[in-house]
């Protein structure tokens, strides 16, 4: 079982949090903070597993994470998941994001966290891996987007709200708050992680 999926940036700002177990909002924030502290301390070339221990639900759990450019993708899993399998799943997730957003960068995640959630929902459901085939995921996402679009077009009422959400507002309105590296730094390619076609040799269509 996957207990939680967290995405945060190099400064610990949450970009997505998905808990498959109930925690109060305060606890969630605390978990995110602590996870960030654990993960951010680690060098680039150390192993991607951490015994999270006390964070979520005890010693059975592990943190499995990957670091892409400015973002950390952290999966908290229990012993029923294969460590290397989850590493690949993260890779599949990021590649799927890359496909859906076309050269995904942190900004995409910042402004479209809802879409990221939707993509994630096609991969992991209630803490269990639902689909690992990227093409299948993308197909389903596209179909749903199409459905959404057709709904938006058929109704004037929601048009204003929806059409805006489909544009990329930050392109015309460059965001210049300094704390983040806002250039469209692609999550890909990130050298090591991409190169490591990693554990499962039969790539994503496992």
């Amino acid at each position, binding site marked *: *079982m996957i207990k939680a999926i967290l995405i945060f940036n190099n400064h610990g700002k949450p970009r997505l949090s998905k808990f498959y177990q109930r925690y109060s909002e305060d606890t969630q924030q605390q978990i995110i903070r602590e996870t960030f502290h654990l993960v951010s301390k680690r060098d680039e070339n150390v192993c991607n*597993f951490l015994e999270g221990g006390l964070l979520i639900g005890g010693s059975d759990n592990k943190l499995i994470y990957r670091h892409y450019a400015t973002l950390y993708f952290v999966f908290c899993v229990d012993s029923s998941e294969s460590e290397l*399998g989850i590493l690949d799943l993260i890779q599949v997730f990021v590649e799927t994001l890359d496909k859906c957003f076309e050269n995904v960068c942190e900004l995409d995640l910042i*402004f479209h966290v809802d879409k990221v959630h939707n993509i994630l929902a096609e991969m992991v459901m209630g803490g269990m891996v639902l689909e690992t085939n990227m093409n299948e995921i993308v197909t389903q996402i596209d179909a749903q987007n199409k459905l959404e679009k057709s709904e938006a077009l058929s109704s004037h009422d929601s048009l*204003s709200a929806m059409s805006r959400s489909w544009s990329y507002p930050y392109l015309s309105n460059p965001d210049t708050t300094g704390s983040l590296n806002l250039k469209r730094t692609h999550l890909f390619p990130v050298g090591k992680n991409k190169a490591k076609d990693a*554990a499962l040799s039969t790539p994503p269509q*496992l």
Partner: protein
Amino acid sequence: MALKMVKGSIDRMFDKNLQDLVRGIRNHKEDEAKYISQCIDEIKQELKQDNIAVKANAVCKLTYLQMLGYDISWAAFNIIEVMSASKFTFKRIGYLAASQCFHEGTDVIMLTTNQIRKDLSSPNQYDTGVALTGLSCFVTPDLARDLANDIMTLMSHTKPYIRKKAVLIMYKVFLKYPESLRPAFPRLKEKLEDPDPGVQSAAVNVICELARRNPKNYLSLAPLFFKLMTSSTNNWVLIKIIKLFGALTPLEPRLGKKLIEPLTNLIHSTSAMSLLYECVNTVIAVLISLSSGMPNHSASIQLCVQKLRILIEDSDQNLKYLGLLAMSKILKTHPKSVQSHKDLILQCLDDKDESIRLRALDLLYGMVSKKNLMEIVKKLMIHVDKAEGTTYRDELLTKIIDICSQSNYQYITNFEWYISILVELTRLEGTRHGHLIAAQMLDVAIRVKAIRKFAVSQMAMLLDNAHLIASNTQRNGICEVLYAAAWICGEFSEHLEEANQTLEAMLRPKVTTLPGHIQAVYVQNMVKLYASILQQKEQAGEKEAAQEITQLMIERLPQFVQSADLEVQERASCILQLIKYIQKLQVKEVPVAEEVIALFAGELNPVAPKAQKKVPVPEGLDLDAWINEPPSDSESEDEKPKTIFHEEEQRHSRHRQPEIDEEELARRREARKQEQANNPFYIKSSPSPQKRYQDTPGVEHIPVVQIDLSVPLKVPGMPMSDQYVKLEEERRHKQKLEKDKKKKKQKKEKRGKHHRHNSLHTESEEDIAPAHHVDIITEEMPENALPSDEDDKDPNDPYKALDIDLDKPLADSEKLPVQRHRNVETLKSPDSEVPLVEKKSKKPKKKEKKHKDKERDKGKKKEKEKKVVEEEEEEEEKKGEDLDFWLSTAPPTAPTPQAQSEPGTGTAVVAESQEVKKEEREEQDEEEEDEGKKSSKHKKKKHKKEKEEKSKDKKKSKKKSHHSEEEPPVSVQNGTLEDEPLPPMSSYRLLAENPYIKMTYDIQGNLQNDSQVTVSVIFENKSTSFLKSMELNVLDSLNTKMLRPEGSSVHDGIPVPFQLPPGISNEAQFVFTLQSIVMAQKLKGTLSFIVKNDEGSTHEKLDFKLHFSCASYLITTPCYSDAFAKLLESGDLHMSSIKVDGISISFQHLLAKICFHHHFSVVERVDSCASMYSRSIQGHHVCLLVKKGENSVSIDGKCNDSTLLSNLLDEMKETLSKC
């Protein structure tokens, strides 16, 4: 008004969407909280509007704020509104918000039930999908119960997209509503073979997750998973299955044996590291479960270790980490194989990655031996010095202590070395584990008598340098060691050479900055020290020196008397008083040392931590009984003040005259003992009566330690453990030389001595004799200690509820209607396991609900529960048979497995096991046939016995051992009071037979429906031809009719939903409706089928007579004796009785037979008399009183219906007359 509307629409145009909100937050870095609270106000306004788009937008923003840590539960109702929007766009937003913030405590969640149900059945698959996804995050027990049916239906949805989601969410449903597991399980199992790989993978996922928690219930699925493992190419699925096998093998070692080969093949062939790793892991689990008995498993271990070495040597840190992790599992059972890779593991200690270092440390723990302990610890000490970051250093520290102290210091050959190590560890700054070191020091000093002198000298040094240890901060955990140091110096002060110096060190003003509990120990032990110095001086006749030391104490103690710590203050003032008194005596030149020292006389023995618990309570002692009857309230009020007053007076008088008389001493000793007993750091003195404080320490019987002279007794300055390593090497070398010499000389004298003290150390143990003849005092246990029972499991384990036996057949009360729809599918897939031919569509659902409600109304919870359980048991057989059939049936349509999959060995085994099952099935049927012949007429043979037998056989067949001798039958639960073994009983009777086919059948009442029974027919193909197009038809009577699909006439037969290849049998079920159940019924029927062989196909027919006995209308129902008595008293029951002579079987046996064949349950049994109860599907109560005489049995029956009763009794007579 109009203005308002215009304003509203303008507002809407300026509504922020999610992107605006995010941007806004980013632009308000300074006052983010304020900005967000503004936004929340806006959102609240938006939520008040009617426009669903606006609402959805608001909810979307809330979801974002939730991620930032804002509680949005206040908007739960709005979220539900958005969830129920008709548009997918909004619905998705709503469900996402719900999945992020709904939980069991959300009160409005119950409002969602109908909406979710609607979405689940939506024609748009994405509506369904989004509802499933959302539900998976916030499903509650109520939702699970209400929606289980709908979700189960979705498991057979036409779209794989829905199927896989429905399958996956079932796990969550099971967790919240465990009752759904059994009804849903057959379908879930079916999904393991779904044509869509995604669905298959989801099913594997769910079953693996279930099996991980309660593996034993899923053992029966092993063959199926085995097949999947050898045929699947999906690595995700493979990994899950292999992990599952890892969980199953400990329960069934024979399964492990079977697994080794395919797994080894996979290890050799796969290029996927993850798969390789999981294979290795499971092989390890298998090897652990086998641990012995496998002749060639060393090869497998070698393979694993070798593969793991490759992982560890890999530059990929992840693989390295996992390699070490798996290595530590091997270590537990096969330490030798791992030890040869010590170099590699030590190397990992240098890794820059902390996780890897920690893993390596874990491994080292298991790798130490006498030979390498010093070396390994030396390496670790180097790492301690180098280590950055306290966590890792602390980890190292605890590991060093763990490694050294494991199994009662088994690997330590030189305790001086160990003490030095401990002292060296005290130099660690900022460690949290001071108390650990302290505990070790205490333990070693107490238990290893030989080391006391050395330990005391080291501890004295620590005390002397206390300023170094305690200097840094108050919070410094390391100062805990001073606690141990002070205690050791005090307790074993006779070994102290410079006692004066140590005493002074303990009296330094700096000491008062230590934590209170340490100061307390200081105070207590400085008196011990003082006492021994006093004695020394007095013996030496140095009166002045003695007085000086007393004076010193009197001067310095007040600093402790002023302590804010209660304990310190109390002890100090008490002791100060004592010493002042001593001073007075000294002035009078009275020798006091003897008396003072008597305060601390007595030997300490370590007591096992559990000793107290294990003291048996003496016979006749009731710990709960009052020693004195508690005084009544009125009395106590009067007397209480008196006693208090009395006590106070006593105390005062003592204060005034602090005479050290015998009584006072005893009291103090008592107090001291008390104090020690409550002191966790104090190793408690023995509870055994021989060792009283009066006894002088029995030194004689303790083996005296001889210290090897090659080791200097006192090391100047702080000790350096390193030198011991060298010394040890030299010593060992010398020893070896000596030994060699001795061998030549054939000498024994000196070494004989060695052995006497070290029965532990046999020659084989690496030939290393310890430097000291160590006497490790074992911890004491009370005499007749009770065996411990520690394994208490967490009662709150949520997975416990899922510990459900899935092999049991489904009870009617559990069955959910979903199963009935499976006809069509089963027709297509004859290999699916439960071919039911019950055409009930929607009826049963309602019926069942009604039934449940009825039960609930009864209010007798207990009774109900018990009933349900019994019903389950009752219905179990059917299902057990089904599973068995599934196991025994080779899928006729499937191609031969060999052709299908690559690793030949694995599949060969599968094929073999299937064959075995076939054979075994035949055997069984033969048995049944025999029995059928014996009982020429209808005989109700039934139940558990047979099932148990079968399940055992099943297991056996898995293990390839057919032709088993009869298993000792297990007693029938129902109605059995003794564990007397019962003969097997079968419930299936012969229906009809010809050269092609044999039919046996069994009839079960249907609890959900008062006018239905289910007939299960086993069809067995006896020929060498293929049987197909089987159709069963009966001639309905007025009373009894076969339930046919809607639209078909009474003359139409019902197709049997499978075909039968040669030698195969399978079971189908048919439902019959009846009006009256008071009489037995017979129905004529025909089975028509096509026989297909090489020559062509022919039409064949087989006639049969279906006999519905009255007992088949009864349903085993438990009854409490009081309810039973009421029933009998009620007077509306008719009575009848029978008597059967010539009964030779035991009474218990007889009851079991009645229970089994006639569906009764025992209410009460007294000697050879029992009352029994059962209920018909139409609610007739049947009560029996069974009495056994010499060799006869009389049965008195009472029932609402006299005809039913007499028929039942007739049937019973028939059964019994055969006994």
